[in-house]
């Protein structure tokens, strides 16, 4: 399989560009979708859920904190033209290189180099060999017009606690004993 190497310039649309846009406007998105579900859900059981199903929302109840207020329709929407899953394979002081597996758009795997300064400062500690991220390129549609943008987000895992490490070590020993007995 031939891999294409791509070097990305910051001008392609960095995460900081996205964050400069007030994405708090997205909150109306969520509530409008949510309210459609509230309005359209019908019969309920005593528990307030729909026949025990996992449908998104309970119908409106008398308890005010369970109601989500109605807000206008969304003003900002991201249309993806390309999406991939990346795995970091090399890191330098200025850039990192990743193998990209397409999830939407182009079919071919690629190797791409990114500038570390494109990554949110709080995510830079996540840039290590083997780290996974998701990268979307597309159009951000706003009332003021369409802009080309990209969103790159690293996968986050819970911190290992001493308890979880101890549990993992104990479990590994148990499995080893089991395998040794066989």
């Amino acid at each position, binding site marked *: 399989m031939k891999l294409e190497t791509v070097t990305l310039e910051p001008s392609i649309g960095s995460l900081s560009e996205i964050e400069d846009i007030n994405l708090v406007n*997205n909150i109306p998105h969520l509530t409008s*979708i949510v309210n459609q579900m509230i309005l359209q859900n019908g019969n309920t059981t005593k528990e307030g859920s729909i026949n025990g*199903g996992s449908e*998104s929302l309970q119908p409106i109840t008398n308890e005010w904190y369970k109601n989500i207020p109605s807000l206008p329709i969304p003003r900002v929407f991201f249309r993806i033209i390309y999406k991939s899953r990346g795995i970091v394979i090399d890191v330098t002081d200025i850039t990192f290189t990743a193998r990209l597996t397409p999830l939407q758009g182009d079919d071919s795997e690629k190797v791409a180099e990114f500038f570390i300064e494109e990554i949110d400062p709080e995510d830079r500690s996540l840039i290590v060999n083997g780290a996974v991220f998701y990268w979307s390129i597309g159009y951000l549609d706003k009332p003021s017009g369409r802009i080309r943008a990209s*969103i790159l987000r690293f996968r986050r895992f819970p*911190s290992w606690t001493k308890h979880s490490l101890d549990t993992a070590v104990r479990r590994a020993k148990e499995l080893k004993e089991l395998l040794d007995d066989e």
Partner: protein
Amino acid sequence: MSPEIQSLSIVLRGQFSPLIFQPYWLVTENLLRKKEADAVEVEIIHPTATVYSSDWFQLKVLNDRFQIITTQPPYNEALRDLVLGIFSLLDNTPLKALGINQAFHFSLESEEVWHSLGHRLVPKEDWNDILNNPGTLSLNVQGERPDSYNGYYRVKVEPSSQVKNGVYIEINDHYQLSEEPNYNTDTKLVIEILSTNMENSLKNGQKIYNKIVEIGTGQ
């Protein structure tokens, strides 16, 4: 045809303590950036309900329901990872059911085409004998799961309340985690489903959406 609005939500039914799910707990556990937690808009944090929104997700936790939703497709995987992270930590949460739900609003070219979709999905010939000017208000169809998990697929189609000449499609990919009235007190199954089946769920949802659009537009 791209939807005008779309969303992905992950819903769990079980037993939850809403107070745990505060934004700074997610930061402490390395699941959320600190500045994201600083910027959340909190509706309530209370022993019976926690509801807040960041710029890419909304979280709502009640004593018997956990729900997280995003309307930004680039964050679909981040949403899944956040749920995976949370329930890796809360690994003894009693659970009954999981739903991976997608919703779409899309617009048709005219009111005439919009009506014809409703007629195609629910033919009106028999209804004309018993109702005056019948119209399709809501259609629910359920199908079996294509895999070995317990549960079902449920699709709802309705006129959209958000988009002109619009259609709303809701797809509920439902997994039954335990037999009523019992709970499954181990989150391994949820973690397995979200880790291995989420991509299939999104693809199936897209397939259903495309089919209904095709019915509506003839394309």
